[in-house]
């Protein structure tokens, strides 16, 4: 039987529960709390900002009253695993203090989470590149494939660390050289469109948010 877990508490305590009861790492637990609060959309916009502020500040304890609000979240083991994987694969993209970037990227992750799909290891590079583009162009919706192709004059793979750590896989990477091109990136993007991660219009793509 697949269980649904329900929790209601402050952001800090929710993180604590995820760490102690579900053996999540602190950062992954914090990320998951933000994702769930946004997913369950019970709260007003100012409380959305509160969650984002809580995520970005690295203090251990919070005494400010606004952080004493209680939030309800619910999730299954499967959803938790999906979120953990997302964080493992792309968590570095939200590791800066720019709230607008955090909010933008979190919305993109939410679409993946809600669609119930996972980004396959061999799709990670394409998805990362798209996310990075979105981070730079938060107000724009549509991108073409050329805009997200890795642009490295020496054709060296920019994500070797991920590949070495086996978080990603890439058929287009050979002996640390990147062979990404329009065609193979398009194939992967189209595959992600079928799983409702992106939407395609003519030859342009956008995140499903």
């Amino acid at each position, binding site marked *: *039987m*697949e*269980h*649904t*877990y*329900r*929790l*209601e*508490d402050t952001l800090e*305590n929710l993180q*604590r*529960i995820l760490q*102690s*009861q579900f053996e999540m790492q602190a950062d992954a637990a914090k990320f998951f709390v933000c994702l769930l609060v946004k*997913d*369950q*959309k*019970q709260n007003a916009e100012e409380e959305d900002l509160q969650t984002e502020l809580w995520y970005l500040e690295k203090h251990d304890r919070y005494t400010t009253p606004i952080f004493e609000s209680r939030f*309800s979240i*619910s999730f299954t083991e499967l959803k938790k695993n999906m979120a953990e994987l997302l964080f493992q694969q792309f968590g570095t993209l939200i590791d800066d203090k720019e709230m607008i970037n955090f909010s933008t990227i979190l919305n993109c992750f939410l679409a993946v989470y*809600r669609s119930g799909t996972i980004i396959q290891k061999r799709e990670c590079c394409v998805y990362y590149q798209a996310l990075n583009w979105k981070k730079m162009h938060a107000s724009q919706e549509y991108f073409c494939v050329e805009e997200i192709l890795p642009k490295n004059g020496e054709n060296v793979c920019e994500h070797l660390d991920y590949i070495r750590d086996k978080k990603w896989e890439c058929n287009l990477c050979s002996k640390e050289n990147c062979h990404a091109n329009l065609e193979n990136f398009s194939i992967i993007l189209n595959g992600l469109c079928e799983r409702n991660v992106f939407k395609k219009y003519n030859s342009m793509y956008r995140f499903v948010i």
Partner: protein
Amino acid sequence: MIVFEISNDEERFVFLVWVLMVSDEEACKGKEFLIQHHPSFRVLWNLLSRLHLCTVIVEDHYVDWVYRDSYYFYYSSKHFNYSRFCKRLCIFSGALEKEFYDCTSEEVGKRFIGSIVIRPIPGRSIGRTLLAPRYFLPERELCQIRLAKYKITVYGKQLTVEAFPYSMQDGETTSCAEITILNLLDYYSRSYPEYRYLLPSEISKLAELNSYERRMPTTGLSYELISKIFCEVGFYPRLYSAQKMTKFRHILYYYIESGIPVALGLKQGPEAKHSIIIVGHKATDENTLGKEITGVYDQETDDTIWTCDIADTVDTYCIIDDNREPYQLSSCIEEKQMKEQSGLLKLNHCEIEYMMVPLYKRMIMEAADAYDICLSILASKKLGIKDFLLMSCFFEGVMTAERTELKLGTKEMPIVMRLFMASSRTFRKKRDEQFRKEKREVRDLYNITVFPKFVWICEITTKELHKKGLVIGEIVLDATSSAEVKTDSFIIIHYPNVICRRMPEDYSEAKNIQFEKINTWFPFERFDGNLENVVGQVRRISDND
């Protein structure tokens, strides 16, 4: 007196055409046409179809007080004639072995299914209806329903029926909203002397005081106005909006489980609204118990206790809907919308808008608060269950190889909770009976405890014991306390082998509470004093007992 014995579709058709005064032209179009176009025919046909063989005694020139009130304040002033009199149908299962007049009350009482008033209003003829639910629930389906006992005298025979009142709206003096009020007040005034019944003219007068336009013919009432009318007759109702609450389904269950029938406002499309009453629910689905688990964190212990709620296993409710036959079962489900992740709560494909709970004035603590307080108590360092489980002799006997890994309260073995309210009189009576054998120690402690008029009770158990109808403890809260009092509202905390009780004077001594040891302790039976267990009867070829 007119007697009909109905054993097949043809006899049923002839009877209904006669009793509802259906015109020859419509009757010639057949049963299917009438079912489609004649609401009263449809409801009566569906009701009588559930009885293979029945005898109907028709009382002509019956004076129904509700219809009489509508007649004098509305129908008597119409241009076309309306009769002052109704017919009353008294239905008995099977065939009567002798003339009705020759039977004793006991003989016919055993077969009595109930009564239906037929008003002289075309199309909306079904008036006050009192029917025993077991004949009309799906076969072999176990439901728990709140009923009241009614006495009916039929040609000198005194009969009783346990039923929930039903009636159809007449469309002019009553809409679904007024019918909801009438049926609920019929039940409450029968069950409790504090409340009085309201006639349609009285409802109209109260509605007029709060309106800006004419009330007749009725255009329905808003839920705020329905709640206001209940205030006028001595209730202290609470109005909940389904879309503003995350735990609406659970709150609904807690009140139904408390034996409090509630009114539900539904949205049928963009303009149309409807009102129904929920009077009970289908038996819990054991297979889904534990599918949803709630974690409660306690900062002092830095620990989390996991529970599962019986409310999550109930999604089918027994409803009184004037558009359909009484005691229909409908599912209350959450439909997830495309982009919004918070679901839309629906009953019978209609969106639920409001719930009006007619509370007594001393029922101050709300269901959601009672639930939160019980969770806090279970998880707390001083009052929580985990330490006491380790000390329990009962669990020492039960848990053998896994004694050192007492798992109750973990994700793998969550504590099962069932929350409801009860009158302390009924609660005491039941517990006194249940603790009589082998549990005298506990019985005596309960008997010397002082309770307010109403209490919230949270029974706690394991999944295995729940299947056997047993519980391992309970938390009893004072229903006159407000939410701010939080865990200081408890009166009894009863865990395996220990109990903590508070008397009224102990309120200021909350910090000094002590648990007493219970030497002889066993799991005890679940409380079942609020709802009647009703099983849908198997329809036999012959209904002769």
